[in-house]
């Protein structure tokens, strides 16, 4: 159970199709099994392929709001490199930040009408003390399939969440078909040690 009463807020952000909702579902199941109250919120609908996706996850002994206010996210995990810059108003100086190295070009960049931002990690490090970059797709490929990058990122995130590894492993095993379990557990481990 939780050591203190403070509710923690996690913001997962990225682009449609990166498996963010699946990752936040797994995370919520883990937190629930660990005895936390948990709420999560995201907006879906419209033809969201390629659009921005965010998921708020909040946990503690009693959670009211599924949404965190601006300037108060404890852990921020960006599944796409540039997207990390979109949610700065949600962050605090001491937010823990994990950024995936993967880039997904938005339409304007594809059309050549503007360029993809440079020096993203360097800029983040200037503002925030706890920034970590994870090359999730590369690790996921090593685990067996680049599509499991979301689980690599969950592994990286799990170091910041006070939950027993056994519960993570148990929930991940429940969340995938038999033949994909081993690969996802490996991906999770690789993320944890990244």
């Amino acid at each position, binding site marked *: 159970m939780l050591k203190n009463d403070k509710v923690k807020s996690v913001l997962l952000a990225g682009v449609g199709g990166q498996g963010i909702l699946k990752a936040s579902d797994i995370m919520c199941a883990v937190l629930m099994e660990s005895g936390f*109250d948990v*709420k999560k919120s995201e907006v879906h609908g419209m033809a969201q392929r*390629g659009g921005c996706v965010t998921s708020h996850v909040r946990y503690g002994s009693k959670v009211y709001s599924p949404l965190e206010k601006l300037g108060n996210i404890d852990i921020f995990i960006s599944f796409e490199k540039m997207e990390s810059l979109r949610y*700065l*108003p949600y*962050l605090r100086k001491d937010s823990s930040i994990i950024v995936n190295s993967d880039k997904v070009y938005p339409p304007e*960049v594809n059309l*050549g009408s503007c360029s993809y931002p440079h020096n993203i990690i360097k800029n983040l490090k200037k503002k925030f003390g706890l920034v970590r970059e994870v090359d999730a797709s590369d690790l996921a490929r090593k685990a067996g399939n680049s599509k499991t990058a979301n689980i690599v990122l969950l592994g990286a995130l799990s170091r910041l969440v006070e939950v027993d590894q056994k519960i993570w492993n148990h929930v991940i095993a429940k969340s995938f078909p038999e033949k994909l379990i081993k690969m996802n557990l490996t991906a999770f481990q690789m993320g944890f040690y990244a």
Partner: protein
Amino acid sequence: MKVLMSGNEAIARGVYEAGVRFAAGYPGTPSTEIMEEFSKYEGVYAEWSPNEKVAVEVAIGAALAGEKALVVMKHVGVNVAADPIFTVSYTGTNSALVIVSADDPSSHSSQNEQDNRNYAKFAKIPMLEPADAQEAKEFAKLAFALSKKFDTPVFLRSTTRVSHSKSIVKLGKPVAYQDKTAITFNPEKYVMVPALARLRRVEVEKRLEKIKQYAEIFRENKMEINDRRFGIITAGMPYNYAKEVFPDFSYLKLGMVYPLPEKLIKNFAKKVKKIYVVEELDPYLEEQIKAMGIDVIGKEIFPYTNEFDPGIIESAIKKNLKGDKFPAQKIPSRPPNLCPGCPHRGLFYVLGKQKVFVAGDIGCYTLSYMKPLQGLHSCICMGASIGMAHGMSKALKEKGKGKVVGVIGDSTFVHSGITPLLNMAYNKSDALIIICDNSTTAMTGMQEHPATGYTLQGKETKQLDLKLLVSSLGIENIKVIDPYNLKETREAIKEELEKDGPSVIISQRSCVLFKRKNYATEKPVKIDAEKCTGCKVCLGLGCPAISWKRIEPKEGSKQQGISVIDEGLCTGCGVCEQVCKFEAIS
């Protein structure tokens, strides 16, 4: 047992736990999953009706036959269904009838953000409003009990944030289904001719008076007295936001937002010094509470528009908040886009090149208003394209000849495009209507409708023949095209625009994400870097699989870059091959 559920899953569960086995609805974000989840429970009948008005009428019929019935729609669906809703309020429901209205503050996925609490007051129908998934489940049960107790339809209002947030829900034991159906006759109660409606009108007021009394003791109208200096009156999700930032304030949380418990509110006002009314959208509670003679603070500090979050409430109440604020960084936007291989792309590429006004409608294809396609010029509501195209062509007379098109999806056409098309034949229109038939309700996530030939519960059924229907409405010029074929599409549009009288083109190709009819995807196409001149014409399709790559200009060449196709995204639809003049794509 405890499970993590979205508000929508929880509503479906609550309805099932209440022993309800009958539901009708029309898909619409954020309500869609309620019907989808409910339809999976053992022994239930659940249907997608062609539109919300039909769904309500189906549910009224079931309720009058003695069956407890649920009807589900998004906020704007209630506009479509308003006609039967206002009058079933007069007749009462015999068995129970609950109408779910899922509102969308912030218009995340809607054409407006109307506050449907107003409908409760307007139609004199009680309304419950849950704040999270656990409440969504419980309130669904309470709504059925309330409906049965007072012989009234009951609204259950959700919002996007309640419907699409997940939280822990304690499952209850479902009540066993009891078949109480029978044909009964009671024309004085159910035939709303003026003489009888006037009598029922009085009954409605009597009923409301009784429900007002009940609201005073309704267990989900809850008072929490803490710090007596500050109180908040609120309902639904904003309660959670407020509790997050002002845990020590006193609260009056209203589970029933119509009718309001006047005595309870006055009692709360006596106990607490300064009262804020915290509500998204309209000053709905505020105006009624002020009319009770109670001094409250509301919209003078809280926004009228968009959904709230804890920070919005905190900064409205506490001025001069401090903290490290990081300003948003300007980075390229990511608007939602038509998928690679989307059948709408070819059609709207062609339409965007014509000098015509394209009256649009509600569906994925609405996205083609954006650059680079720009093939759609209006979007008002479900079915509006056809009536608008007709009206515009009539108003423009000769000036509009061959210049006015209406586009509508297959599901939207069945929802509310049939009568305006009949009108076009009847009133001798001159516009061209294109039915973008992708064989599903794509935008809300692949729901069935009469022209797909399958029901919500996956049963094969009589499939509506769109061509035959259009013809029987009196439209003589009908063409069926494949929007993957640009030449065919261009020529058909040109020919039909030139003709006198109304025309219909059915642009037929199923959604690229559609599982049942997933035609084997073609091999991805490639760009021959030697042949590509960097003319950027293919970029004009706005396909997410095609991007622009800068290159160092070769000696004596001005070419700045080439187009590149992402093989992982390309579905091989071949539309870009047809726009390349240099045969660089194959």
